[in-house]
């Protein structure tokens, strides 16, 4: 564990907008974020700049008090690549985009804009499944606690967000693939040996998470460590859905995802295939 944490706060947030029925809700969510995180907001739209669209956008920005304290970037080009370029140029810490909970199989395999962005983006990304106009408190966050060097920062981000939005509960989830770890040819083990190996693995995981949590100033926040067995990525996603989490926070993928990852899903692809709630992929930029 490095113990060296990088910049945690999302200082500069980009909001990818489209002129869909969810535009106002997305801007309303951006306004809540600006208040909570005190971030600089950049609205990004890729497409033609018509007078009517400008009028509509300005109306909403004004309504949510964002017209004079946010930046608007309006560019033409291929949507995903253009947004990615803007993210790099503007050095955004977080990109926010609306996303459907579930796409059709073909669209999922081909990739929708939000999902394509999530697979390629270098900064963190928040996918909002149901952006709301009205105030909707975040009560419950589920965050990944896997054995990965990125986890320490991901948990730190979850705690920052929880504090900023006065979240009541945070569950740190260890996804333990004990099937593979312990039961490979379990005939090789005596019954007590299997239990002993499991205990050792669990103790090791607990120690690691307690160490991470001890390094973060959690204050009065109620943090629960839970352990679930199953396929990493799928099982935390299922947990978030079943427990009605408001936000699921995962480590960003360790490598570039491609079409094969959708055919043979790994980690975040399980979540992307069927978003259980709003999803934040944490990718802290290197200093």
């Amino acid at each position, binding site marked *: 564990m490095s113990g060296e944490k990088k910049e945690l706060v999302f200082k500069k947030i980009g909001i990818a907008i489209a002129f869909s029925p969810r535009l106002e809700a997305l801007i309303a969510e951006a306004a809540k974020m600006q208040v909570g995180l005190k971030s600089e907001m950049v609205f990004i739209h890729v497409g033609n700049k018509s007078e009517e669209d400008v009028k509509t956008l300005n109306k909403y920005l004004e309504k949510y008090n964002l017209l004079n304290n946010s930046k608007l970037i309006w560019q033409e080009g291929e949507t995903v690549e253009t947004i990615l370029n803007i993210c790099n140029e503007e050095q955004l810490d977080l990109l926010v985009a609306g996303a459907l909970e579930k796409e059709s199989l073909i669209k999922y395999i081909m990739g929708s804009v939000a999902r394509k962005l999530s697979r390629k983006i270098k900064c963190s990304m928040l996918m909002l499944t149901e952006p709301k106009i009205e105030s909707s408190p975040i009560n419950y966050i589920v965050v990944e606690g896997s054995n990965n060097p990125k986890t320490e920062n991901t948990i730190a981000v979850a705690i920052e967000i929880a504090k900023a939005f006065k979240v009541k509960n945070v569950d740190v989830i260890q996804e333990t693939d004990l099937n593979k770890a312990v*039961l490979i040819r379990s005939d090789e083990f005596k019954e007590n040996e299997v239990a002993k190996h499991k205990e050792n*693995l669990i103790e090791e995981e607990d120690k690691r998470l307690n160490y991470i949590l001890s390094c973060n100033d959690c204050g009065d926040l109620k943090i629960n460590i839970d352990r679930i067995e199953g396929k990493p990525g799928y099982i935390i996603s299922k947990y978030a859905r079943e427990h009605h989490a408001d936000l699921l926070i995962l480590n960003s993928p360790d490598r570039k995802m491609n079409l094969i990852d959708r055919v*043979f899903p790994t980690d975040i692809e399980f979540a992307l295939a069927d978003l259980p709630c709003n999803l934040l992929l944490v990718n802290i930029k290197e200093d």
Partner: protein
Amino acid sequence: MNTTLSQQDTISLIFSLGVLLIVARLVGEFFRKFKMPLVVGELVAGICLGPSLLGHYFPNISTLVLNQHSNSMIAFNGITAISVIMLLFVAGMEVDLSVIRQQGKTALKTSFLGLIIPLAIGFLVAYYYYPLFGEYFTSSSKLILFSLFFGTALAVSALPIIARTLMDLGLFRSKVGMIIIIAAMFDDIVGWLLFSVILGMLKISSHSHGFLFTLGLTILYSVAMLTVGRIIINKSLPWAQKNFSWPGGFLSLSLGLAFLGAAFTEFIGIHAIFGAFIVGIAFGDSVHLTEKTREIVNQFVTNIFAPLFFVSIGFKVDFFANFDLQITLLVLVLAIATKLIGAGFGAFWGGLTKQESIAVGFGMNARGAMGIILAILALQADLINEKLFVAIVIMAVITSIMAGPALQLLVKRQIDKEQDDLDKEQDDMFV
């Protein structure tokens, strides 16, 4: 044609099954006390009961245990053929596609060189120096197949034994442990594919299908099973879980599909084991497969069918009469050297230290049950002689036994020290 077993044959078969299962377990447990894999004990049990020992000195008692000349032997051979299909199904279930997909550069380089170097060196040595193995070929195509088989026998790894060794040493979750597991999984898939193709090519002359047709169907079967088949299995499991008694329903469905897959690959000219292996991968990859279900399938196959299969090997060959020191040493040295060089250099190329790389080499070196299965199938297909078969089995046993002590010596101390430092750091935090 007489399609039924006489009462005497039936009694003989049932008696054999009972004795073999119990003796295999007893000897297996005895060997486990000395930290050796169960499979070694099961194999030794077969050698003791078969023509090598009991059959040599007390042939009547050996015949009583397993009468190889009665009709019951046909049924017994059928059971062992089914056993190996189920063993490969379980081996397939152990493969984790997502882990392989996520493998980093180090694991990729380790698996690549850990496969290619033994395969290439094994092939070349077998091709140019085949008389050293007591083999003589009249056709060049059979020599190529023999050389390919020998390279494959050196290239495979025994995932279960490696996993067990790493668990025992507390190295499973270490960097070295994960690299060994991932690389072994990958090498297993390629190794079994290659071996199945070799066996398929052996049959070509006696088969109605041509080689390209067979290869095409094999690729089509693999791709279809691992994509569409895997998705259908994954989607069907929750439905089956809801509507069938569970996990009994899973046992019937999964093994049923494994046999169908095996029948299909046997039909197209590739060995049945490959069909079952691929079905195993497809089932094992399902997110709905629980630990309990997986364990039941595992226990069912590995505690009933695997011992029968491994103990039966001892009855196929007289191990003492066919032991050839020169061939055994040659196979052993080649197996250890090529795996150490291949996997070790791959790991070093991938960024591990010299010591860690040698440890990876020793970890991947274990051939275990996979090496033994490969050898017996090659013997049955008349691809190798009995002396080489014995040499490969001995190599598989020795490489499996030496993996633990080698890893202990090379990395355990270093990792323990790192862990102690980390524990101390964490304890200081809590204080």
